[in-house]
């Protein structure tokens, strides 16, 4: 091999992880995967589990497609991608049903709908088909984490102001807003846990990000 060996975490490779967290975020910048982001963010726990599920699926599908990229007949490449993604999603769904039954019930159809999540197909088409496995896996980590991050931020505000608690996997629901606040007349905002508020919170996140990052602003 003539090409120079690149270190595993070279600056270029690290960019693959950090870019999707910020200026290339799949939700707030590319506006992909909105449906599930709105649906599962009423509480922290499903948001975290959903984020991890998508992270796992996007990493492994990127990796597998990248490994297969030179063998895939181009006429059926979308079908191949779909089969790989669908298989991984069903694996995740089965594992959740076996080991996190309550959460899997809350996520209901949205785990299955990871298959149609545009982030996955987008990454496979745009990146994994043309890059080496290691870079593709890193790209998957970045995009999965970027997706999970937004879900968790949105869920944090929605649950905190909507119910006054934060729910973590394995820890259960933790009361964050003290009883004394309620005694003084503070009230949970029921609107926060309804779907419209998810859209508004995502909108606020996008606004804050564009305000801080001038390069994202359209002229």
């Amino acid at each position, binding site marked *: 091999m003539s090409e120079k060996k690149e270190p595993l975490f070279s600056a270029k490779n690290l960019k693959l992880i950090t870019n999707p967290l910020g200026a290339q975020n799949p939700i707030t910048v590319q506006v992909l995967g909105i449906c599930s982001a709105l649906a599962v963010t009423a509480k922290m726990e499903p948001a975290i589990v959903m984020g991890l599920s998508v992270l796992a699926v996007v990493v492994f599908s990127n990796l597998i497609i990248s490994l297969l990229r030179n*063998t*895939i*007949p*181009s*006429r*059926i490449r979308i*079908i*191949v991608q779909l*089969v*790989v993604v669908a*298989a991984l999603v*069903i*694996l995740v769904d*089965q*594992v959740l*049903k*076996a*080991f996190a*039954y*309550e959460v899997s*019930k809350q996520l*209901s*159809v949205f785990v299955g709908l990871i298959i149609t999540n545009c982030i996955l197909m987008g990454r496979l088409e745009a990146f994994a088909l043309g890059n080496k496995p290691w870079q593709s896996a890193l790209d998957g980590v970045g995009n999965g984490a970027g997706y999970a991050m937004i879900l968790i931020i949105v869920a944090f505000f929605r649950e905190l102001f909507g119910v006054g608690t934060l729910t973590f996997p394995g820890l259960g629901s933790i009361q964050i807003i003290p009883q004394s606040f309620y005694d003084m007349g503070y009230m949970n905002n029921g609107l926060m846990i*309804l*779907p419209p508020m998810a859209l508004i919170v995502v909108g606020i996140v996008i606004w804050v990000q564009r305000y801080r990052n001038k390069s994202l602003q359209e002229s």
Partner: protein
Amino acid sequence: MDKQGNSYTFIYATVMVVVVAALLAFVSQVLKPTQNKNEEVAKKIEILRSVNIESTAKDAEAKYEQYIGANAYILNYEGQKQEGNAFAVDLSKELKKEASQRAYPIYECTLDGGVKKFIIPVRGKGLWGPIWGFVALNDDKATIFGATFGHKGETPGLGAEIDKEKFQAPFRGKSIFNKDNALVSIQVIKTGASVNPDHEVDAISGGTITSKGVESMLKDCFAGYEKFLKN
């Protein structure tokens, strides 16, 4: 080999599908027992909730043993006890049979203080898919002590509200028999249109088809228990 040729494409697709199918079948087999266990526990939680006992995945089994235990049995259409495991009866299969051929499971729950409740499992159709529930009757076999409903995929915010306390609580204290001892079940009606509050609860606005589904589910399922309940 030509990677864009028909035979390559065909073989590629076949091999891939077989590999994926084998993998998924294997995983499904390995995880099946754990999943079934989870479903059983979830069912026990629902049954207990119909008699207003809250439980979690951890203590549901113990509480089920304590309050119901072996006091679950199958009735036939005539209201006589049958052999068999009531908990294992699959209502979706039973409902496909003739009413007189069905197995009618019933759970007898003894609460603290020795009060007896009869829990009847119900199942029917909502707007998008199956809906189900458990209705607990007092020992007069007529007044509802508690009800809990679940659904596969009703519209969130509308029909899906049947699994919420707000919809379920009004069922408490309603009677499924009228003064003449005829089975009238429970009507789900528009708010304010009440004529006979003893047998009516409020429907969910915007969730009419699901609400009506609950109504016909109760009517159909209670009908099979009529002879038992009148005894």
